[in-house]
């Protein structure tokens, strides 16, 4: 069973917030899903290696050749706030 406090903790890790009403609704539905995935406990996996990626030829190396990338204007075209050619962010240090 997942508690309301656990849901609140996960929300803070995920940088999300919910109203009290949403939290209650969410906790119930979330508990059902967590109960369902606990079905996996039935499987004995003691001697089994995890499969992170199915593609066996993954992570090839390539020559480090410099190529043209996006321009500064293109990179910044979708941001709401920019300054001096950079993304503008809230001050985190005084």
């Amino acid at each position, binding site marked *: 069973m997942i508690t309301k406090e656990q849901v609140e903790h*996960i929300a803070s890790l995920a940088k*999300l917030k919910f109203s009290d009403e949403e939290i209650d609704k969410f906790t119930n539905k979330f508990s059902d899903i967590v109960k369902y995935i606990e079905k*996996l406990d039935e499987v004995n996996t003691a001697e089994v290696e995890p*499969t992170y990626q199915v593609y066996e*030829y993954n992570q090839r190396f390539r020559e480090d050749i410099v190529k043209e990338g996006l321009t500064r204007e293109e990179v910044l075209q*979708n941001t709401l706030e920019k300054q001096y050619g950079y993304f503008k962010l809230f001050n985190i240090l005084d």
Partner: protein
Amino acid sequence: MDITKLSAFEMKKKLHQKEITSRELIEAHFNKIEEIDGNINAFITLDKTEALKSADKVDEKIRNGERVGLLGGIPIGVKDNIMTKGIRTTCGSKMLENFIPPYNATIVNRIKEADGIIMGKTNMDEFAMGSSTETSYFGNTKNPIDTERVPGGSSGGSAAAVKACEVALSLGTDTGGSIRQPASYCDVVGIKPTYGIVSRYGVVSMANTLDQVGVFGRDVRDAVLMLSSITGYDEKDSTSFKNPEGTIIFGSFPEEIDYNNYLKGMKVGLPKEIFGNEIDIRIKDQITKSINIIEALGAEIEEISLPHLEYSLAAYYIISTSEVSSNLARFDGVRYGYRAKEYNTLDELYINSRSEAFGEEVKRRIMLGTYSLSSGYADEHYKKALKVRTLIKNDFDKAFSKYDVILSPTSPVLPFKFGEIKDPLSMYMADLFTVPVNLAGLCAMSIPCGYVDNLPVGIQLIGDKYKEANIFKAGLGLEGGLKNGL
């Protein structure tokens, strides 16, 4: 003649024989969209100016006798989680409502190189999370067969657009069934190719190790035409498949298809774990008819066992949501996407932006993934799910050492009505038979196999990795058998 009803192959033929022009074709499709899309809502964004310009270029090439690409002059829809330079790409979310990509996905460039005409961007479940296209910020897409019902999801817009003849072909993405399930609900062909054979560069990631771009067409040959235009190694995608020497994925396109020959001697497995499952009896009956056709056309059919299949959905929801929580961390309101107006600290900027712009299902999956990966649960849930994934993959490997194709219904249920399924867990069950394919990185195709109570049924043909040729042959054989009333 309504030229929007032609198959892509027929369109190509008429274009080459100069019976029609690409401009006529594209205008006819835009007229169709204007006429019916207010009701279907298959598109989020259209790009008529650019499409007509591209059509004129193709017409000029044909007039001058120049070589025209594989998709020359054909109208195509692109799912809205695939980057299109200069055309808004929203992922069906308020988060990216105004996002205009500065570059194209590799597959979009390939469509353009093949002279395909991109009509616009199709509707989808928000960030590809859903099985009904009900979670889109831009409203539901309706099933053209019955507008009270869902088109399936998450590529519902792409499937509906092809069914409604708004485009001839379209692109979708499939993480757990998001091409095959809407193909089944909308009575079209949908292919989820082997993981890695289509570049994911420029495709907004939902769950990297499961996502694969695929295609829709109104028949098998059209879908294969579309797929063969976008496959191939891409150095920009480290998970892209570098075709080892001797591996043949596609054959050539025969002008005339002799469906009688494709299934002869093919070994087909029916997993008892699927057919013993609680499937709508009407679907089961329809699938049985198709199995009889496959057998009549010379395939050997046997019951097989995939013992860990019943754990697929649980493993899938842990693995996919874990990857979702990590991928969607990039949406923080800083560089692009929605930014909240009210905030006092940097943390509040992140939290308010994400909470205001993500929908309920997206939040639920981020939460589930964060939970599965959080300290104390990572081994219990995430690693356990990855180990179960190994067992599922091993089951398939064993089966494919003996069989060419594995059969199942595409979906355990028929297309349902809007709002009919409220509980998320029941919604997840709609992907029960499609999810194992993504976990094992295999290829699979859903093809229409008839109607029950005026609703379409899809059958899923699963092939081993890089053995697309097997499912194409089986699909062409079965499709021919069905059309010829076997």
